[in-house]
């Protein structure tokens, strides 16, 4: 695949042999937002990397609205530009594929990333940054925030962090980030989309390890697994606060699919990195650049009663499935929650952590079909989210942050439970 993509680059930029920085834009039908994003990126490149050699790369997975042409026009002749069409095995260009295959809202996003890594390797670029054309709030500063930690401070991977509204990214805050932190000992926010930075070293690693791209986790959830793999492999992970993120394609519109893909990716790599996370104790901060991120106290509408309804329906209908997955004492705790009134409803944090760990063990043991297992976590997740909303109702941003932090610590403290069950199930 790398050769085909490289030939496309050579056809368009035959004189480009080596660059300092690759700026990549994976795209799919984003004509409505792409032009201002590209103009902003080009402005950022001129102001921060005026003297560096750069390739602007558009990896389009089959747009039918002329996105690649708009990108080419917007870039103009300001920086060397190439538009490539990654090999997507027929997944691109289908709206069905868009809904079916990736919570990122973009089909074959993984292949676009892979092509970008392949070009980065061929050009021996020191860094490559990937930006999303659907994010309307990209600023010129994002380019340097993502690239400079790699070019100047030796980072291998730069993950984005955004200002968020209260309760935004609930799945990430309540499950993925605490679990990743407990497993691999790095305090990363695990937020996705917007922009990433990669060193040549880590992009080569991604390219050379075919196994990373296999399985549903590898295929459909690259936004989730790049962070997991970077922390698990011990690469230099940095975070950069990029400010606000307003995105046209709402990542994770289908919640159960998003949950299955994002959580599935985390569970998938738990099997690969078992030797690493079993030995890991405690956690440490990772370096962060940019202005400190904030939690906006303005909350978007949240229907707690609807979440509780979902939880109770799960309790009523999915019990035979949960009986297979959950340990008896976890199940007993969950059953007890069904008796509580809406206002008094609390899903205790230790019980939630135990639930997540039981699901991880169930995934590992393949007690039922894995997609079914992951999707059956959905009502329990709704229950925990409702509980967090009720617990922090009326509190300030510190309370929300404290709740998330307390969750992370509990995941760490209860890790022996996971190790015991994982080993001796």
């Amino acid at each position, binding site marked *: 695949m790398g050769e085909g993509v490289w030939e496309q680059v050579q056809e368009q930029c035959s004189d480009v042999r080596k660059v300092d920085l690759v700026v990549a834009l994976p795209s799919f039908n984003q004509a409505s937002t792409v032009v201002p994003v590209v103009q902003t990126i080009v402005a950022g490149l001129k102001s921060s990397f005026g003297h560096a050699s750069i390739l602007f790369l558009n990896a389009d997975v089959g747009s039918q609205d002329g996105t690649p042409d708009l990108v080419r026009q917007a870039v103009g002749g300001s920086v060397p530009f190439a538009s490539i069409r990654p090999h997507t095995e027929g997944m691109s260009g289908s709206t069905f594929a868009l809904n079916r295959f990736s919570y990122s809202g973009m089909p074959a996003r993984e292949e676009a990333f892979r092509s970008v890594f392949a070009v980065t390797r061929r050009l021996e670029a020191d860094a490559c940054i990937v930006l999303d054309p659907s994010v309307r709030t990209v600023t010129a500063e994002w380019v340097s925030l993502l690239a400079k930690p790699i070019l100047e401070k030796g980072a291998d991977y730069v993950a984005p962090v955004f200002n968020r509204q209260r309760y935004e990214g609930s*799945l990430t805050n309540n499950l993925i980030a605490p679990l990743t932190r407990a497993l691999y000992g790095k305090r990363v926010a695990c937020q996705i989309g917007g922009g990433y930075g990669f060193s040549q070293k880590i992009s080569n690693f991604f390219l050379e390890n075919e196994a990373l791209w296999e399985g549903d986790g590898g295929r459909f959830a690259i936004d989730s697994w790049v962070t997991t793999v970077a922390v698990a492999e011990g690469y230099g992970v940095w975070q950069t606060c990029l400010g606000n993120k307003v995105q046209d394609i709402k*990542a994770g519109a289908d*919640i159960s699919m998003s949950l299955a893909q994002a959580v599935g990716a985390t569970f998938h790599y738990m099997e690969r990195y078992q030797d690493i996370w079993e030995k890991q104790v405690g956690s440490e901060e990772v370096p962060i650049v940019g202005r400190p991120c904030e939690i906006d106290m303005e909350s978007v509408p949240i229907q707690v009663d609807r979440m509780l309804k979902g939880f109770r329906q799960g309790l009523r*209908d999915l019990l035979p499935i949960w009986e297979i997955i959950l340990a008896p004492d976890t199940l007993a705790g969950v059953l007890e929650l069904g008796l509580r009134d809406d206002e008094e409803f609390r899903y205790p944090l230790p019980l939630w952590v135990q639930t997540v760990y039981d699901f991880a063990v169930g995934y590992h043991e*393949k007690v039922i079909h894995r997609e079914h297992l992951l999707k059956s976590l959905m009502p329990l997740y709704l229950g925990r989210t409702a509980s967090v909303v009720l617990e922090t109702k009326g509190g300030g941003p510190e309370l929300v942050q404290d709740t998330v932090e307390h969750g992370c610590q509990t995941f760490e403290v209860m890790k022996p439970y996971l190790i015991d069950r994982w080993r001796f199930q």
Partner: protein
Amino acid sequence: MSEMWQDAMVAAFRETASRGVLFLPKLMALVTFLMLGVAMGWLVKVSLMRILNVVRFEVFCERMGLTPALTKAGMKQQIPHLVGRLAFWIVFLFFAFMGVDALDLPATANLMSAVLGFLPNVVAAILVALVGVLLANFTGEAVLIAAVNAQIHGARFIANMVRWGVVIFTVAMVLTQLGIAKEIVVAAFSIIFGGIVLAMAIALGLGGRSIAKEVLERRFGREKSRDEFTHI
């Protein structure tokens, strides 16, 4: 007269004796085949059970929902044991039919070739039944989870309908494969399936309009998601 009677007696005795002498090896062949059948059946059963245990077939069946389905149907034995027993009886019957064929009786003439001719149908029917049960459980479970996550009322009912739809379809296919009352099976299947579809259509039209509206609105996004925040 007496001589004729004597000749008839001797001839009859000789005939019977010669038939007996001719039949005895055949009887011994039958007994040998039966003993061989028991021995070979036992060997196949034990080997098969060991192989299935090594490849963790029981775990696979548990995961695919076959074990719970059989438990619900009253089967208490483990599936590898069940498969082993089935293999034993197939092998035993195979040898038994050979033994019966060896008797060379007019009533059982060509029994073995008839059995062998029908055997592919039986194997195909067993495979169809197995795949059907697995598919019924898998689709039933998938529909149940999807319906619960979509917060659709009567999720379990919908899942059961799907599960039993697949089971009925499988039974019809198995009976057709075995050639048992083909016309009746096709007619019965058409009536049952058509009846279910008609009943569902009437039920939806009369009593389930609100549910259908809710599902369609959610599917086509006319009703905005009430939770506006992103989970990821």
